[in-house]
């Protein structure tokens, strides 16, 4: 049984002081239900997650107590992807016909502060100031730039594009274009990354309605099919966040593994993809993830970015909604935002940021601590 996405809903990302994270989740869920033309009482199951805004299953208090099995998912940056995989399997197995996936969050300002003990790392690691995701991303891109000849200009070009796309997205947080020079000369956060090259924790909510593919036409004229959903954790030897040491022999990270699994599952290759949303926790991550997901060779990004290939009208549009850099990262909602954007693109309903040429295949990728990655491939 194939699985279709027949409803999508989003609560704008950014800062919404008047609404709790849960309320933003409920707002997105109601929008998704309305989009699919179904009532909450018709939904047979739900998976959802939130890192800092309470239990996702508390959504039933907002939406109504129908006795629905609502399972909470907690998997860091891959929370949304993990919820989606769970819902996909629930329908594919034949157990259910229609269900909801939801993710929302509301984080404090400033960088995330992780607790070493929760990840089985000694307290000393945090005390000396190494329990910082930003440092990992900076050190990974520093090494990558050294090995593959990527310039600081390329980092700035990624952010420049994110803000251009964000300006076209009514649900984005950052909606003002910022020039290349301003991005490059902004306050340094972790060398080589300035403050405009990082995403920040934010708020928002996304919900999706999934159903058996053979029921999709009941709910929408533009079903989008979930052709693949994969998730992987790190293998020994990959270079990962929150690692007091790294093995001398390096192996591919979870992104490479999840990507390969997804392409195999969908029976398509990187060249077939028309639009892609790639985890851009910072500008360097987008660059590295282009290659890790198989869309180019290592080092090729330098000329791809300079030629504008990753812009909406380019030959491989990346993060058409502004990505994490323009939307911020509400952990529970972030991965689902990518799926929301791809469904909008495949429906031809992305407005000002619509990728030209009637895109048919779309790709999402998240990466997060402590070394996990989730990928989806959607087809219309």
């Amino acid at each position, binding site marked *: 049984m194939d699985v279709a996405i027949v409803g999508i809903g989003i609560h704008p990302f950014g800062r919404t002081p008047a609404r709790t994270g849960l309320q933003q989740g409920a707002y997105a869920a109601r929008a998704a239900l309305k989009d699919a033309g179904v009532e909450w009482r018709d939904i047979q199951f739900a998976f959802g997650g939130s890192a800092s805004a309470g239990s996702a299953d508390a959504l039933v208090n907002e939406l109504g107590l129908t006795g629905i099995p609502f399972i909470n998912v907690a998997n860091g940056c891959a929370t949304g992807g993990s919820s989606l995989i769970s819902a996909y399997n629930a329908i594919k197995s034949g157990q259910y016909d229609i269900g909801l996936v939801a993710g929302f969050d509301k984080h404090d300002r400033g960088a995330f502060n992780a607790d070493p003990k929760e990840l089985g790392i000694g307290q000393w690691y945090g005390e000396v100031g190494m*329990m910082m995701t930003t440092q990992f991303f900076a050190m990974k891109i520093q090494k990558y730039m050294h090995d593959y000849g990527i310039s600081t200009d390329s980092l700035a070009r990624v952010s420049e594009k994110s803000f251009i796309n964000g300006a076209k997205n009514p649900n984005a947080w950052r909606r003002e274009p910022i020039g290349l020079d301003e991005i490059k000369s902004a306050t340094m956060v972790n060398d080589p990354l300035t403050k405009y090259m990082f995403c920040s924790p934010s708020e928002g909510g996304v919900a999706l309605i999934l159903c058996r593919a053979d029921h999709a036409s009941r709910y929408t004229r533009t079903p989008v099919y979930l052709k693949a959903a994969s998730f992987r954790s790190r293998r*020994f030897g990959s270079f990962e966040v929150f690692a007091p040491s790294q093995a*001398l022999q390096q192996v591919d990270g979870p992104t490479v593994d999840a990507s390969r699994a997804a392409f195999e599952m969908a029976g398509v290759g990187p060249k077939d993809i028309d639009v892609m949303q790639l985890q851009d926790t910072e500008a360097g991550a987008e660059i590295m993830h282009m290659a890790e997901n198989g869309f180019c060779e290592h080092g090729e990004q330098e000329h791809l970015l300079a030629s504008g290939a990753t812009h909406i009208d380019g030959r491989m549009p990346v993060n058409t909604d502004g990505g994490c850099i323009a939307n911020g990262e509400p952990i529970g909602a972030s991965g689902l935002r990518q799926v929301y954007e791809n469904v909008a693109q495949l429906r031809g309903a992305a407005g000002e940021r619509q990728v030209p040429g009637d895109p048919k295949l779309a790709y999402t990728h998240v990466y997060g601590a402590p070394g996990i990655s989730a990928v989806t491939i959607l087809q219309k």
Partner: protein
Amino acid sequence: MPHQVPIAEGLFTWPADQPALLCSRCQHCGIASFPVADSCMACSGQEVSVEELPNQGTLWTWTVQHFMPKTPYNSGETMETFKPYGVGYVELPGGVRVEGRLTESDPQKLQIGMPMEVVFAPYRTDDDGNEVISFFFRPVQ
């Protein structure tokens, strides 16, 4: 001279004439882990021995932390006294790449591949007035 205590037990030999970082080495596959672990992340083996890591290596990658982290950061600094610090992975030959704070925080003076050595120095003073000793990597002069 104030009493000195290591920032964590088992991270490095202390006190010692020639202190050194400690790793565990898997008796089955030979992979080294820092800090010392009860089992091997490479092969799941549970027979490990503890050994000293070399004191010198090369800088594998680095960054500089320009803003003061939130807790659990605990350096005794305030927002006013905070100074940016370098962080990097140093490849210790035959061992593992260890992440540590660098004594150097000037990006112009840090380069991938440069020789580094481990040093042990006071990091902060604890509530009892003890000097808390941690490890740092320093460019080899």
